[in-house]
C-alpha cells in the first residue's frame, strides 16, 4: 500500500537553511550581547559619576603644583582690635578651584608712652641756689662756647637755643643775637675779680644750670636765689624750672650766700627722698652775708677771721654752712669761677665743683617701654645712667637737628648736641625704629644696621607714622609736629593729644579737636566737646574719631568732625583710653577710666566693671577677649618699680573675667604682640619678660573660609 504524501519542497537537508539558522542564532546572540553591554556601559558610566562624587567630594584637590597665591590686606577681623590688627586673606588658586583662608595680622603695636618715668629707689632731690647779685655780671674766667647768645634789651646776656641764621650777630626786637666767638670779642664781661675770660658768671652759670637740668632725668629740682629764696619748689617739670630761671636777673645788691644756703637746708622733704644735694651757683663773692647762729659761723673750725657777718663783701661763712650741711647728709656742690674758695666749699660740703649729672644721680639701667620689635628681633630700649643708651646702636654719629624755636618749621644743624632723656615712646615700622625721649629728642634708627640715622632736638611725645609722614607730640612746650622722612618739619600745631588717619591728623586741646591735613598741616575743620578731651582714638575700620572726655563721655565724630553720636558711660573718672572692635558689624568701644573698664556701642552701655587690681595701663582686644593690664602702685613713694602689675582677660562682650595673672613687681609695659610666635609679652622696668600664649585664639593661625569652584569637574 502506498501512503499519500504531499509533495512539498523540503530544505531540511539544504545547507542554506543551516546557514540561515546559524546566522539567526548569531544575530540573537549579538543582540543579547549588545543589550547586555549597553546595560553594563550605562551602569559603569553612572557608577563612575557616583564614585567620583563620593570619592572626591570635599577632599582637598590633588594639588600637585603650587597654587597662584594672592594676599589681601583687609580691615580687622570681627572681635579683634581695630587699631592693632588687620586681616590677611589668603587666596590660593589651583586651576578650577580657589580656596580662602584668613588670619589676624598685626597693624600696629598697642604701645603706650611713658610720660614721667620714676623709680622710687632713685629719687634724688636737688636745690639750685643761684646767686642773683650784681657780682654775677663780672667775668668768670670762661669764654663763650660756639652756641648762640642773646643780649636782651636790658643788657643782660642769656644763652638761647642755637640759630643758624646768626653768622656773627643779628639784631631783633628781643635783643641782639650773637655767636659765641663773636661774643668773645665784642661781649667780654668786665674782669672785675681778675678771673679772666670773657663770659660773665650769670650767663655762664645759667647756661650750665639749664644743661644740667636737662641732663637730670629722675631728679626733683628746686630753684632758689640768694635774694628771693625758693622761686620754684621741687618739680621735674623742665619747663617750670626754665621759667623760674628766666624769672631771675642779676640785679640784687646783696649776696647772702651762706645765709641763703642755711635757710635751704630745711627745705628738703622728709619722705621719698634718696639723696639731698644743693648746687651753689655763684661768683663766690658774698655781700652782706654771715648773719648766722653762733654755732654755725665757724662750723668748720678753720678760725677764719671772716667767719662772721660782714657788711659788704667778704664774709667767709659759706664753707661753714657747707660743712654743716655735709654733717646732716646734704651734699653741697659749687659752680662758678674756678677758685680755690668754691672748690673748698664743695669739698667741705661733700660735693664737687661744677658737678655733672653723675655727681647728682646714679640710676640703674632700666626701661620704661615695651621691647621694640624690628626685623623679627625684640630690643630693649635701655636707659643707662638715666639716658637712652640701649647698647646695640652701632653707628653713633647721626646727623643732629634742632627743631627751630625761632621758626617752627625750620630744622637747623647745631654745631654739637648730646642725646638726652629717657626713651619714652617708640614706633617700629618696617626696618626703622622711631623713638622719642623725655627731653624731646626724636631718633630715627635703621634697625638693619643699628645705625642711629638722625636725631632731632625739640620734638618729643607720642610717635606714629602714617605712610611717609611721622607725627609726634606733644613736646614739652605742647607742640605736635608732622615730619617728612628727610627729615623735614611739615607742620606744627599746639595740642594735648593727637590721632592720625592716613590723610588727616586730629589734634585735641582742652575741649577742641582740630583736623588738619596730614601732609601739609592745612586746617580743615574743628569741633568742640562739653568737657576737656582726655583721650582720642581714630578707628581705621569705620573712619570714626572717638573722643573720651574728663566728664566720662565718649563723642563719636566722622572724618569731617561732624558729631555722629555721644555715649554716656556714667563713669566717675576721666576716659583715659579707648579700644574699638566690631562684633557682627556693630562698633564696640572698650573705654577705660583709671579704675574702670566699660564696653559700649552706639546703642548704649553694654557693661561696666571695676578694675580689681590697680589702675589701667593698657589693653588690646583679641578674639573677643579684652587683655587688660593694670598696675597696683604703692600709695607711698611713686615709682614704676613699686606695687604689682596684673593681666586680666575679660570677655569683651560681657565683661566677665576669664583669667587673671600677676605679671611683675612694679609696672608692666606691653603688650608686645608677636603673632609669629603666637604670644604676647610684657616686660618690667628691670627687663623681666612675661610671655602669654595666645596660640589658641581663632585667627592666630590660618583658618579656612571655604573654597569656590570656577570650573565644574564631575
Amino acid at each position: 500500500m502506498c501512503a499519500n504524501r504531499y509533495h512539498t519542497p523540503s530544505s531540511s537537508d539544504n545547507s542554506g537553511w543551516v546557514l540561515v539558522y546559524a546566522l539567526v542564532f548569531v544575530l540573537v546572540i549579538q543582540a543579547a550581547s549588545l543589550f547586555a553591554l549597553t546595560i553594563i556601559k550605562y551602569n559603569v558610566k553612572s557608577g563612575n559619576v557616583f564614585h567620583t562624587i563620593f570619592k572626591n567630594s570635599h577632599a582637598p584637590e590633588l594639588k600637585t603644583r603650587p597654587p597662584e597665591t594672592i594676599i589681601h590686606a583687609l580691615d580687622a577681623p570681627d572681635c579683634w582690635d581695630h587699631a592693632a590688627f588687620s586681616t590677611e586673606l589668603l587666596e590660593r588658586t589651583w586651576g578650577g578651584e580657589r580656596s580662602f583662608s584668613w588670619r589676624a595680622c598685626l597693624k600696629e603695636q598697642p604701645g603706650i608712652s611713658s610720660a614721667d618715668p620714676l623709680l622710687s629707689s632713685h629719687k634724688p632731690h636737688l636745690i639750685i641756689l643761684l646767686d642773683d647779685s650784681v657780682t654775677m655780671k663780672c667775668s668768670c674766667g670762661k669764654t663763650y662756647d660756639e652756641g648762640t647768645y642773646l643780649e636782651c634789651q636790658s643788657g643782660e646776656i642769656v644763652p638761647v637755643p642755637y640759630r643758624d641764621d646768626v653768622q656773627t650777630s643779628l639784631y631783633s626786637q628781643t635783643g641782639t643775637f650773637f655767636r659765641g666767638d663773636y661774643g668773645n670779642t665784642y661781649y667780654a664781661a668786665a674782669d672785675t675779680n681778675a678771673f679772666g675770660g670773657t663770659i660773665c658768671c650769670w650767663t655762664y652759670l645759667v647756661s650750665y644750670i639749664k644743661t644740667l637740668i636737662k641732663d637730670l632725668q629722675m631728679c626733683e629740682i628746686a630753684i632758689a636765689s640768694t635774694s628771693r629764696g625758693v622761686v620754684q619748689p621741687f618739680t621735674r617739670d623742665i619747663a617750670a624750672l626754665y621759667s623760674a630761671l628766666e624769672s631771675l636777673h642779676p640785679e640784687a645788691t646783696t649776696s647772702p650766700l651762706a645765709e641763703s644756703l642755711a635757710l635751704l637746708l630745711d627745705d628738703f622733704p622728709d619722705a621719698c627722698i634718696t639723696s639731698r644735694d644743693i648746687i651753689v651757683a655763684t661768683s663766690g663773692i658774698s655781700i652782706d652775708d654771715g648773719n648766722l647762729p653762733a654755732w654755725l659761723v665757724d662750723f668748720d673750725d678753720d678760725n677764719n677771721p671772716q667767719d662772721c657777718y660782714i657788711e659788704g663783701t667778704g664774709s667767709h661763712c659759706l664753707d661753714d654752712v657747707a660743712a654743716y650741711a655735709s654733717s646732716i647728709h646734704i651734699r653741697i656742690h659749687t659752680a662758678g669761677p674756678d677758685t680755690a674758695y668754691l672748690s673748698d666749699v664743695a669739698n667741705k660740703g661733700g660735693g664737687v665743683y661744677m658737678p655733672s649729672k653723675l655727681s647728682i644721680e646714679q640710676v640703674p639701667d632700666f626701661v620704661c617701654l615695651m621691647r621694640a620689635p624690628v626685623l623679627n628681633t625684640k630690643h630693649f630700649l635701655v636707659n643707662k645712667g638715666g639716658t637712652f643708651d640701649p647698647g646695640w646702636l652701632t653707628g653713633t654719629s647721626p646727623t643732629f637737628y634742632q627743631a627751630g624755636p625761632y621758626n617752627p618749621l625750620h630744622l637747623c644743624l647745631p654745631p654739637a648736641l648730646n642725646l638726652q632723656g629717657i626713651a619714652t615712646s617708640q614706633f617700629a615700622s618696617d626696618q626703622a625704629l622711631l623713638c622719642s625721649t623725655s627731653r624731646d629728642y626724636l631718633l630715627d634708627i635703621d634697625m638693619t644696621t643699628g645705625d642711629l640715622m638722625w636725631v632731632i632736638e625739640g620734638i618729643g611725645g607720642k610717635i606714629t607714622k602714617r605712610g611717609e609722614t611721622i607725627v609726634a607730640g606733644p613736646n614739652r612746650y605742647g607742640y605736635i609736629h608732622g615730619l617728612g622722612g628727610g627729615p623735614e618739619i611739615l607742620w606744627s600745631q599746639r595740642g594735648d593729644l593727637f590721632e592720625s588717619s592716613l590723610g588727616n591728623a586730629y589734634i585735641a586741646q582742652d575741649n577742641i579737636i582740630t583736623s588738619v591735613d596730614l601732609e601739609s598741616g592745612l586746617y580743615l575743620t574743628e569741633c568742640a566737646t562739653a568737657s576737656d578731651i582726655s583721650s582720642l582714638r581714630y578707628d581705621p575700620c569705620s573712619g570714626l574719631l572717638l573722643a573720651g572726655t574728663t566728664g566720662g563721655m565718649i563723642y563719636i565724630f566722622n572724618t569731617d568732625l561732624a558729631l555722629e553720636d555721644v555715649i554716656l558711660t556714667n563713669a566717675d573718672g576721666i576716659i583715659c583710653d579707648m579700644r574699638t572692635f566690631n562684633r557682627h558689624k556693630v562698633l564696640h568701644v572698650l573705654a577705660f577710666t583709671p579704675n574702670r573698664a566699660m564696653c559700649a556701642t552706639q546703642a548704649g552701655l553694654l557693661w561696666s566693671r571695676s578694675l580689681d587690681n590697680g589702675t589701667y595701663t593698657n589693653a588690646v582686644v583679641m578674639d573677643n577677649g579684652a587683655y587688660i593690664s593694670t598696675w597696683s602702685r604703692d600709695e607711698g613713694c611713686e615709682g614704676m618699680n613699686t606695687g604689682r602689675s596684673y593681666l586680666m582677660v575679660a570677655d569683651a562682650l560681657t565683661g566677665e573675667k576669664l583669667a587673671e595673672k600677676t605679671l611683675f613687681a612694679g609696672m608692666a609695659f606691653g603688650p608686645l604682640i608677636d603673632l609669629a610666635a603666637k604670644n604676647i609679652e610684657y616686660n618690667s622696668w628691670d627687663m623681666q619678660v612675661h610671655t602669654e600664649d595666645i596660640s589658641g585664639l581663632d585667627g592666630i593661625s590660618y583658618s579656612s573660609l571655604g573654597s569656590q569652584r570656577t570650573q565644574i569637574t564631575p
Partner: protein
Amino acid sequence: MNKGLSLVEFLVSMTIASVLILALFSMNLLCAGTYTEVRDSWYCMQSLRNALVLLDRDLAQCACLMPPDLKIALLDRELFIAGVPVTSSHGGLSVPQNNAPPLYSLVRSTHGSSLVFDTVDIDADSVADYWADLGIITDSGPYVISHTYSRGNTLVPITTEATAAVGDRIVPAIHYELRTDGLYRNAQLIAEAVNGFDTVMEENLLTIRLQAGYNHVCKQISYPIFIR
C-alpha cells in the same frame, strides 16, 4: 522518489517551531522587561545623579567667605546650603575691598513676613546677593525669599512668618526642597524622580539620603559629608 512531508514530520516540525517561537517570545518578553527595568532604573539614577552632582557642587562651596557657623540649615524635606549660586546674572561672591570676611547681612528690623536687611550686597561689589526664591540662613533659622521679592531692595519678603531677631546675621543660601513632583533647587526642578529626601546632621557629619522612584523601580543613595 517521493518527496514531501509526512504528518508526523509536519507535527514534529510544528512542535519544534512552536517551541522555538515560544522561546523567542519569552526572550523578547524578558528583553523588553529588562529594558523597561533598566530604563526606569536609569531614569532614577539620572535623577539621583543630577541631584547629587548639584548637592556636591553646592556643598563643596558651602559658606565660602561666610560665617562658618551658618553653613547648613535643615528643615523637614528642606536643606539650606550657605552660598551664592553662580547664575547668568551673578558670578558668585568676590573678595571685598576692605571688609574682612566672613561676609553676611544683618537684620535691621522685621515687618510681619518681611525682614529689613542692612545690606543686600554683602561683598560690596555693587551686585545684590539675594534674589527671589533663594534661601537664607539666619541665626534664628532658615527662610526662603518670596517670589515677589524685588532684587536689590533691603526689604526682603519671605515665604513664612519671620521669627528672626533684630541683629541676626543672614547669609544667602541655596535652597533644596522635596516637593511632590521631585527635588527643587531654588524653586527649579532638578530631579523629577526623587521622591525621598532626608537630611541628618550629627555633629559635623551631614548625611543626605536620596530616594528616586519610577514605576516600580526604587533607588536609594546615602551621601555622608563631613562639614568642616
